[in-house]
Structure formats: structure tokens, C-alpha cells
């Protein structure tokens, strides 16, 4: 019970000191203090102050000394705290990720070690960052005039004692506590711990200690590299820097406390920020906030931060028994998903979150279709904030539709500050001639993706009023767009021409199945909402239009054709090219790939992932058999979705290989682009593969469907999440499923029919073949 109480406050393992006098056996009887050695204290520091020789129990440090020793130990701890020593972390191998130490991979390391709280993000650069380093501080949703996310002042930097000497020590990211810990040799190295508070979203803190000659804190806040406009000032012991351009700015204020004795220096740094995209940041306000942060102090901030992370994990924990590597990688993904979006206001979740500069912080379908479903389950308020971002950009989407002579709302492929399309439309090619970038023009499926995200959020969270209320325009205005976009031929069939689906190897195609089916789904959803408000004529018209849309279904083959003419392309498969993943466009060239059946990622299959109810029952298996051998997985979005579908189709071993690829994508820098930020959509896909693939969860008419399909190496898969407004736990083992809930929960396990789980824990046996294909 004590262990659980401490764990709820983020105090686990090595952070716990257990002192007793009787841990060993005494003549065959268990020692008096042995009951304290429970599983929850597995890695605790256990000290015996007893004198009995039988106390030499494994893992117990025998100090002896009785009660006086207890007092001495406590004094030691208090002295550490009074001296502001760098706190320890619990180096539980299931929860810590060591960062690469090779200077050549420093930029990868600092992306991997980024800390964020949804509001702001700081990369995990060494404090004494050298030229190989790219420290960055971002504030969510703050863009520069040219619609690039604005780099803010840096608050983690120290001066470089000797530019010739690389930083020393090992950085580890503590997923459970949300801290970045730097270990160093006590005598010669620098140790530090930093965090971006999730309990006080505008507080950031860093404590470091090391030899006086090496630890040179310098100015606690500095302008970022290549800052074009910044103001730097000092007010007493506090420093402030503002970076920005007209009307958009980020101000950071920070203060250092420094103690130097006997050649050893301890530095404690507290920092805070202010950013308001509309009015610009006021440094005065940053100083005022800093005073509030100082009043809390480092230790209180850390305690509250750890407790807040413990609370986040209570709704998001992933357990994979039998596969610690996959478990850690999955937790790593969840950690960064939880860090990506704030719980309130609006969340502009860029493709790389708050961890790097790639894509200028622009928001893609990555946010709506990959990240949001995960957050809807593990952090619903953050998912709601992501939807709020889209809602606030409806005026721009309406204007975009109007600009091309259509109605409704057309959301942009790339969205930044104000919701206008910021996709680069044209670049200058190698020969000086302009090259057209087609994605912005043709990837119109983003319109339905945004609507789908809103509907998924409502369905999963049970927020039934959302679609009829605040979320209504996202479905109705997008449906209105499709209604004006569809061309009806003389035979009455509806078509959407010149689009690009998720498979970007084939540009400007007609009747892309993904686009058309998503548009059909969108029209039906919009029609349902219109009918509810009495607009029956329009609803009827939209339903008829939805029915008329061609979707590529070919009953003879049992396949959906990806777009008109796809089946006539060169029948190239990956077995003839090489083992995936392969960036086939780069290796074979645009023309060759575009004239073949090779696809970059799930396109038709993405429909099975998002809207299986829109498809012919039983089509998942044939479509997987056909499209998967043609999929290059040349997109970071690809492997996790395929893993999810393969698991659902009863092929968990094939799914596991792709799951591992996705889960290690950033940890192993498989794309070569982790330097510029983590692939959040992949991380969302990783969670979705666990939840919707291996556990086979789905929201079906208010019930939670669970159809597990576990690989042989996994003894159990368990997720903590929220569904229909309540926290739940789902654990699947080969022969049964365990559901934990606080309120009655309707579940359908293994298609055995709906059954109510009463509050507490319910175990449901699985049928004889839980891994068989059981879904469209």
C-alpha cells in the first residue's frame, strides 16, 4: 500500500530508502522487516541497521549501528537536500532510455531526449552545448511571420569550459518521472537533472553540479542560434530574453542560484516563459511569472511534476509481458505523445511535436488521424485541444473552399498559424526551372481526415453532445465541401478527380478509393447531423451523393482498386525490389514508381483502419494479401498502420515485425531525420497498433470491442486508457481478457456478444481461436 501511495507521487524504486533492522531470516523465521520487501520496492535502497549476522540478505546493505544509524542516514538525506544536490532518478530499465553519446549523433540524441509539456518543448542538448549541438526551445502554436515555428530563447545552456573537450557523462530520459538526468563521475564530471513541468506548465527547472572549473553556468537565458531579432536584459539576479518578429514573440526569464565550495559548484536554474501569438510576449510578465515559480522552488516543482507524470501514466501505461524491448519502445512513444499537446486551449501538433524544426512545426493529417486517436484514449483533454485547433481555423478553411469556387470548408494539407495553406507549392528545381509540389493541391483527403478525427473523438470519449454542438461544423462544413467537389457523370455516378491519396507515389489520380470512401463517410455523417436539425432535404441530397460515389470496389477480385487505372500499372512488387522499408521513389525514380503498383503506405488499407464499416465485409484479408506485398513502407506513417491491420487480420507475427520497425523508428533513426524532431505520427501509430491491432479494440455502438491477437513472444499486453469517460484497464493474455473499470462498462470480447463489466476487475475467457480474422 505504501509502495502504491509513493508510486502515485512518482516515487519508485531507487528513490525509496528502506531502513530496518531485521530483513534476514532468524532461525527459519522471516525477519521482522521482511514484509517491507514487496514487489513495489523491488529496486529500493534497503539498508539494515540491525546487528544480527543473519541480516546478510541479498540486496540489503548492512550498515549496523541501530537507531543512531537511522538518524545519521536521515541527516545525510536532509544535508543533500539542503545543499541542493542533483536529485537521483529511478533507473528502472523498463522506464529509462539512455541517449546516444557519440558526438556524431548528438542531434539525434537531443531530439530523443526532448522534454515537453504540450505548451513548450526543450531539446535534450548538453548544457555546455558545442557546435555539434542544436538546442531548441519552442512554444506550441507560436509561428514567425513566414509561418515557421518561432525558436524561443534557450534556458538550458552553460558556458563551454574548453571547446576542445566533448561533454562527459551519460544522459538518460526518465519516462516515468519526465526528467532528463545526466550522470557523471562525482569527482570530475557534471551531473544534472532538468524538467519542463507538467504541473506548472510555464515552469522549467535545471539543477547541475560538478567541478568549478568545468561547470560554468554563464547567462541563464540566451538567444537561439541565428536569432534575427532578440532583446536581452538583466534585472538584478534575473535575466530575460525575448525573441521574435513583429507581433509574435517568446519571452523567457530565468534565474540561477550558485554555490561553490571546495572546487565543487552547484547551480540551480528556474525559468519561465510568456508567449502570446496575438500580442507578442511581454518580458515584464515573464519576470512576474518567474517570481511565482521561485516561490514554489525546485524541490516542490519536481515533486509536483513527478506526481503529475504518475497521474498521466495512470491513464496511459503500456505493459508487454515477455518483450521488454517492445515495452520500453512503446512507453517511449506514449511519453512523447503525452508531451505533445496541452490539455486546454488549442493544440497545434506539428509533425515533429515540440522536438525539432522539421516541417516548420506545420500541422498535417498526422495530427488528426495518427496522434489524436491515441490522445483521445490516453489524454482526452489534449485530443479536444487538437480539435479546437481545427475549429478555430474553420474561417480559413471556408475561405480556401470559396477561393476555388467550392462551398464548405477545405482544410489545408499543411496548416500553421492562421489555417491558410502553407504547403510549399513550388520550388526551384536543380536546373533552375520551377517544380510544382502537388501535395498541397491534391491531398484533399485531409478534409475528411479532420472530420473523422472529430467523430472518432466523440465516439471514443462518449462525448455525445460534441458532434451536435461545438464539433458540428467540422463534419457539416467538410461534407458541404465534398458535396460541391464531387462531379456527377451522365450515368449518375459521382467522381472526385485529380487527387492524391496517402500513397504519394501516384499524383493527380482520379477516384482514389481512400479519398472517395472518406468523402462518402463524411457526407453520411454530415447528413445525419443535418437530419437531426431538421434539414432533411439537404441531408437526403448528401446521402444520394454519397451513394453515387464510385469507390473502386471490384467484386470479382474482392479488392478495392486504389484509383482508376491502378490495376493496369506495372505489377511490380517489393519481392522484386528489396526488403522493405525502402524509399522507392528515391531508388527507382518518380516516373518508374509512378507507373508501377508500388505504394508508399497504406491507401486502400487505410480505409480498413479508419472506416471499416464503410467497406465490404471480408475485404481486409484480400486487400492485405494484395497491397502489402506492394507496400514499400517508405513513409514513417506506414509500418505501424500495417502492423495494426495485420494483427486484426490474425497475423500477429507479421504484425510484430512491422510494429518493432515503427517503435524503433526514432530510437534507431531509421529515417535519418530524427535530428530534426521525433515522428509523432509514428508514435501515434505505435499506440494504435497496440490498441486497435494487437488488442483489437474498437468503439462499436457504445460498447468496447476487444479482439486480441497477440504474437507468441508476448505473454500479455495491457493498456491503461480512458473509454467513454472513465479510466479502464484492458489486459489480454493468450486465453483470456481482463477488464478493469470504475463504472459499468459494456464490452464485446472476441465477438462473443456484448456483456457488462461491473466495477472492479472482470475476466473473460477467449474462444479457441482468438487470432482468426474477425473484422471487415
Amino acid at each position: 500500500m505504501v509502495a502504491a501511495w509513493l508510486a502515485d507521487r512518482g516515487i519508485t524504486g531507487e528513490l525509496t530508502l528502506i531502513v530496518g533492522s531485521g530483513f534476514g531470516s532468524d532461525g527459519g523465521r522471516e525477519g521482522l522487516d521482511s514484509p517491507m520487501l514487496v514487489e513495489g520496492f523491488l529496486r529500493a535502497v534497503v539498508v539494515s541497521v540491525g546487528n544480527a549476522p543473519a541480516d546478510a540478505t541479498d540486496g540489503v546493505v548492512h550498515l549496523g549501528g541501530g537507531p543512531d544509524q537511522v538518524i545519521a542516514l536521515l541527516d545525510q538525506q536532509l544535508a543533500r537536500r539542503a545543499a541542493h544536490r542533483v536529485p537521483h532518478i529511478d533507473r528502472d530499465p523498463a522506464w529509462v532510455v539512455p541517449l546516444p553519446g557519440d558526438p556524431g549523433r548528438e542531434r539525434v540524441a537531443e531530439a530523443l531526449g526532448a522534454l515537453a509539456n504540450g505548451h513548450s518543448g526543450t531539446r535534450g542538448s548538453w548544457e555546455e552545448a558545442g557546435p555539434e549541438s542544436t538546442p531548441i526551445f519552442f512554444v506550441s502554436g507560436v509561428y514567425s511571420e513566414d509561418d515557421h515555428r518561432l525558436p524561443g530563447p534557450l534556458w538550458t545552456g552553460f558556458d563551454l569550459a574548453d571547446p576542445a573537450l566533448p561533454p562527459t557523462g551519460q544522459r538518460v530520459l526518465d519516462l516515468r518521472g519526465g526528467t532528463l538526468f545526466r550522470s557523471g563521475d562525482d569527482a570530475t564530471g557534471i551531473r544534472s537533472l532538468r524538467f519542463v513541468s507538467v504541473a506548472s506548465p510555464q515552469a522549467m527547472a535545471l539543477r547541475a553540479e560538478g567541478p568549478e572549473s568545468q561547470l560554468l553556468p554563464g547567462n541563464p537565458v540566451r538567444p537561439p542560434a541565428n536569432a534575427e531579432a532578440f532583446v536581452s536584459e538583466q534585472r538584478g539576479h534575473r535575466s530575460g530574453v525575448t525573441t521574435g518578429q513583429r507581433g509574435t514573440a517568446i519571452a523567457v526569464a530565468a534565474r540561477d542560484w550558485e554555490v561553490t565550495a571546495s572546487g565543487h559548484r552547484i547551480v540551480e536554474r528556474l525559468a519561465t516563459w510568456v508567449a502570446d501569438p496575438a500580442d507578442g510576449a511581454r518580458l515584464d510578465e515573464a519576470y512576474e511569472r518567474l517570481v511565482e515559480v521561485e516561490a514554489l522552488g525546485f524541490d516542490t516543482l519536481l515533486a509536483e511534476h513527478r506526481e503529475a507524470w504518475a497521474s498521466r501514466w495512470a491513464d496511459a501505461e503500456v505493459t508487454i509481458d515477455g518483450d521488454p524491448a517492445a515495452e520500453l519502445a512503446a512507453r517511449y512513444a506514449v511519453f512523447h505523445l503525452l508531451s505533445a499537446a496541452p490539455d486546454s486551449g488549442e493544440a497545434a501538433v506539428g509533425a515533429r511535436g515540440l522536438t525539432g524544426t522539421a516541417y516548420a512545426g506545420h500541422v498535417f493529417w498526422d495530427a488528426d488521424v495518427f496522434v489524436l486517436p491515441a490522445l483521445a484514449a490516453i489524454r482526452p483533454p489534449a485530443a479536444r485541444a487538437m480539435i479546437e485547433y481545427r475549429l478555430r481555423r474553420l474561417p480559413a478553411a471556408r475561405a480556401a473552399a470559396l477561393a476555388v469556387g467550392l462551398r464548405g470548408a477545405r482544410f489545408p494539407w499543411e496548416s500553421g498559424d492562421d489555417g491558410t495553406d502553407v504547403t510549399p507549392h513550388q520550388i526551384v528545381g536543380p536546373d533552375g526551372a520551377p517544380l510544382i509540389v502537388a501535395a498541397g493541391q491534391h491531398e484533399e483527403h485531409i478534409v475528411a481526415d479532420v472530420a473523422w478525427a472529430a467523430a472518432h473523438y466523440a465516439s471514443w470519449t462518449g462525448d455525445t453532445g460534441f458532434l451536435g454542438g461545438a464539433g458540428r461544423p467540422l463534419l457539416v462544413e467538410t461534407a458541404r465541401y465534398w458535396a460541391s467537389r464531387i462531379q456527377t457523370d451522365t450515368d449518375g455516378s459521382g467522381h472526385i478527380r485529380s487527387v492524391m491519396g496517402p500513397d504519394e507515389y501516384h499524383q493527380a489520380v482520379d477516384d482514389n478509393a481512400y479519398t472517395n470512401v472518406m468523402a462518402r463517410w463524411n457526407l453520411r455523417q454530415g447528413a445525419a447531423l443535418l437530419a437531426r436539425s431538421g434539414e432533411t432535404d439537404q441531408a437526403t441530397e448528401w446521402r444520394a451523393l454519397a451513394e453515387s460515389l464510385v469507390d473502386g470496389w471490384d467484386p470479382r477480385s474482392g479488392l478495392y482498386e486504389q484509383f482508376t487505372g491502378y490495376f493496369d500499372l506495372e505489377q511490380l512488387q517489393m519481392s522484386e525490389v528489396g526488403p522493405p522499408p525502402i524509399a522507392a521513389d528515391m531508388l527507382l525514380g518518380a516516373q518508374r514508381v509512378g507507373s508501377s503498383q508500388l505504394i508508399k503506405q497504406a491507401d486502400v488499407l487505410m480505409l480498413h483502419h479508419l472506416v471499416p464499416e464503410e467497406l465490404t465485409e471480408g475485404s481486409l484479408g484480400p486487400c492485405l494479401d494484395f497491397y502489402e506485398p506492394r507496400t514499400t513502407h517508405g513513409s514513417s506513417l506506414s509500418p505501424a498502420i500495417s502492423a495494426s491491420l495485420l494483427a486484426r487480420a490474425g497475423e500477429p507475427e507479421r504484425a510484430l515485425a512491422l510494429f518493432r520497425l515503427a517503435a524503433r523508428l526514432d530510437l534507431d533513426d531509421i529515417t535519418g531525420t530524427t535530428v530534426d524532431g521525433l515522428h509523432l505520427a509514428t508514435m501515434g501509430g505505435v499506440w494504435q497498433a497496440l490498441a486497435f491491432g494487437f488488442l483489437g479494440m474498437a468503439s462499436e455502438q457504445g460498447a468496447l470491442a476487444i479482439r486480441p491477437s497477440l504474437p507468441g513472444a508476448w505473454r500479455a499486453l495491457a493498456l491503461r486508457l480512458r473509454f467513454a469517460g472513465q479510466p479502464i484497464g484492458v489486459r489480454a493474455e493468450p486465453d483470456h481478457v481482463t477488464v478493469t473499470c470504475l463504472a459499468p462498462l459494456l464490452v464485446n470480447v472476441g465477438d462473443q456478444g456484448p456483456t457488462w463489466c461491473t466495477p472492479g476487475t472482470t475476466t473473460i475467457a477467449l474462444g479457441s481461436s482468438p487470432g482468426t480474422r474477425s473484422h471487415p
Partner: protein
Amino acid sequence: MSFVLAALDNSASARAVLDAAVRIGRLTGTPVRAVYVRTDPLEPFDAVESAATRAQVPLRVVEGPLEPTLIDALGDPEVIVAAIGAWSGAPPTGPYPTGHTARALLEHADKPVVVVPPATGSRGVIRRILLPLEGTEGSSRPVLERLLPLLVDQVELVVLHVFTDATVPAMLDRPCWTGPSTTWTSWGGSFSAGTFPMRTVSSSGRAPSSNRLPGWRPTSTWT
């Protein structure tokens, strides 16, 4: 005393090799010495001798089997760079653009070896060196670490980031025909950081010379 070794044979490439060695000598601030391996005691080497004399390069003639003797000469700790002709006689037809002697030397060398095609004419002082590097720890950094300390004259190094089948990233989120996207920048940045971690590097977009990688790719220059 350190020197540049010019490995000569009786072919037309001897002059080109000597010329390259002399230019490398200027670049590295070291003298040039030539070696000729006489595999047949009756074999005349007048042409080699006169070429060395014209270039004012001392020539050492040694007898023995060709490749082991050359490898042995290269092992002299005072040799800092070697120059050798790419081939003699007909151009090679296999996958490697060198003859077997040059290849043997390359495979055994633990120091820079410059392979000189026979038709190379004199181009004066070397002002620029093209370094195609794949950016891996094992291949790129040793090249730089061995090469850079040798250079005493002003020279521009143009580093070309080259992907091989083993190093090409497996995924490309923005299609390659969309041009120099952030992906290219990321790759360029990683390459630069991995190759010259402690130095200042500038990157710029350059048109590719090969159509294997359509679109642009970044090259990094360090001057």
C-alpha cells in the same frame, strides 16, 4: 623525412603519376620519391628513368614480385601519400576502374593512395579536392583524420554526401520530387555532424550529377 611515393611502371601513365605526385608534394609540403619495381632483370626502364629525371624526382629501382614489393614500399613509415597509375595497357572492364596492381595497393594501404588515370594531364596546383563520403563513422571520419593533417597549402575540400545501398535512409516522408525539403536538410545536417562533429560546416543545395537520385541533394563544403 616524409615523402610522397610515386609508384611508376613502364606504361604511359608514369608521367601522369609523377605529375600528380609532384602536385601532391606541393600540397603537403613534402618531397617526392619514385619507385620502380623491376620484375624481370632484363627489362629496360629507360623511359621511367628519363621521366623521373625530367620531373627532378629521385628514382629507386627494386627487384621483386610487383605487388608485394610495392606494398612493402608503401609500408615505409616515411611515406605519407602514394600515387599510382590506375592501369597499364587496356582499361579494365570489370566493376572497378583500376587494374589489379592499383587495387592491391588500395586494399593494403593504411594511408592515402591517389590513383591516377593514364590520360590525366597536368593541371597545375591543386586548389580543390572532391571528397565523396558516405558519412558513416567507419568510412568518413578516418579519411578526414588522415587527410587533413597532411595538407599545408591552401585547398578547398568539397565534400559530397554519397548514399550507398547500405546507408541510404529507408524512408522519405516527402516524396523526393518535391525537391530540397526538410528531409534533405536533416540528412545533410546528420552527415555534417557525423563527419565533422567539432567543426564548422556550411551546407548548400547542388544539382545532382547522377539520375539515380532524382531531385536535389545537399552537399557540404568545408573551406
